[in-house]
């Protein structure tokens, strides 16, 4: 039995464009602009977590939403719109990574990613900001040592807070598989983190 949670049944009331009216008459009403407003931050931060540099993230967001705009009529509502967009993002990032390997493109390995924007403004002292930036750098460094599937699972589960069911539907897998993969990903991440802590002492 495939129970569909409320969050997964996306219904749009107005067509996004003329094609979507024909192809998906039941979908509706969020204009493309609304969809962009709701999900562009999500796409941006996950592009960065998947290893796209700060300068390349803008291009990735643009590519993702061009695909979204063109392919929205094909979206059948079986998953959440966010899951669907995440699937597009993953493939766009892969494309960027390949183009980086071919030439000097905009997607760089995580360890080379600039961290200039990871210090968030706020009422914190410089050392607290530096500490926070170092934690982000550590997270990115450890994530970069995992393979792409494990990294994706940890991002979705631990950083985006998705449920196993949402992840499974997004990745077109079943919940048990996702659960065991996630456990393996956590175990590997934990080992890397423990090793890092052992090596680097009391740093974050």
């Amino acid at each position, binding site marked *: 039995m495939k129970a569909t949670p409320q969050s997964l049944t996306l219904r749009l009331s107005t067509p996004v464009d003329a094609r979507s009216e024909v192809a998906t008459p039941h979908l509706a009403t969020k204009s493309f602009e609304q969809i962009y*407003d709701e999900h562009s931050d999500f796409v941006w931060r996950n592009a960065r977590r998947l290893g796209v540099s700060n300068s390349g993230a803008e291009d990735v967001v643009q590519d993702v939403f061009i695909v979204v705009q063109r392919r929205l009529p094909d979206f059948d509502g079986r998953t959440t719109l966010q899951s669907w967009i995440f699937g597009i993002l993953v493939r766009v990032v892969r494309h960027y990574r390949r183009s980086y390997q071919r030439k000097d493109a905009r997607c760089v390995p995580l360890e080379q990613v600039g961290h200039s924007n990871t210090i968030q403004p706020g009422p914190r002292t410089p050392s607290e900001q530096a500490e926070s930036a170092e934690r982000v750098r550590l997270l990115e460094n450890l994530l970069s040592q995992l393979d792409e599937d494990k990294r994706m699972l940890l991002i979705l589960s631990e950083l985006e807070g998705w449920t196993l069911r949402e992840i499974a539907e997004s990745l077109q897998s079943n919940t048990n598989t996702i659960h065991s993969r996630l456990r393996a990903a956590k175990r590997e991440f934990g080992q890397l983190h423990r090793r890092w802590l052992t090596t680097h002492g009391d740093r974050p």
Partner: protein
Amino acid sequence: MSNREDDWGNDSASLFRETRRAHDPTPAESARLDAVLARIQAGKAETSFAEDHAADIVVRGVASATLRQIAIVSLGAAFVAAAFFAVTQFNRPPAEPAHGAKPPSTAVASAPQPIAMQPAPALAPVPSGKLSASSQTAAARDEGQSRPRSQRRRWRASAETQRSSPRDMASAPEASSSTPHYPPTSVAMPESGTARQAGAEPASTEKAVAAIQDVAPRARSVESNPTEAVTAAARKADPMLPENAPTELAMMKRMHGALRDADFSTALALSAEHARRWPRGVFELEREGVRAIASCGIDTDDAALRAKRFLAAHPHAPVAMRVNAACASQLAKR
């Protein structure tokens, strides 16, 4: 369960928790995202991939995964074949020299003999770039003369293809020795002059080898240049360099930890230690703020003076507000 499952501990969970919002776009990045939307809506935006590739981006990448696996298998097979070929070539016994043929006279000349049938015997050994062209030619000619006729013909054909002009064979050493691709800083080449001096080839080759061996220790001595060690030590000691920041940061973290635990004497001691190690460190300003706060916490005699001086000098420092709050009573007394 096993210890392996415990690897995902509180540390890892808290690392994820604390960095959850770290990648959110900043206001400047949000402005860039707005510009992206404007471009897409204006129809000016283009993807970096082909139009029909958009469909592939959406559909599950089954085909690409299959192709990738095929490519991996093909590469593996090619690698195995190449390795097999290399092993068989390497293990092939060297061609016997003809009866009565003079054995190679020098070590350098005899060195490339197992690969003498390769197309570029004179270019293959590493020292060839350092040796003069005359010694290369001499060594190559020795090899050629030690071959049977049929092999020698093939060798000669391949050797001739390496030269720009077959007629230059006699003058090749001179021409090559003056070619610009020999760096001027390399070994002083033992110039052997013309091919008629082939009889002196062993001596010139030995000179070249000796010269190379003479240069090698000098090259090593450059590597162990003590100035590099001094520079490295200076870099290690420089607190302003980013690689030194983590240690300083760890100290600041301990300082803040002590403040949080209201352990002001420890915070004071740590700030003194910080001032000793990094008098002009990245967190100098913050250290002075912590020192003022800790002084006020203990209520030392100079606490109010220290706080007042700090606030006068750095009224807009991020830590100024905390100094103000921590030293309110001391400042009110004055």
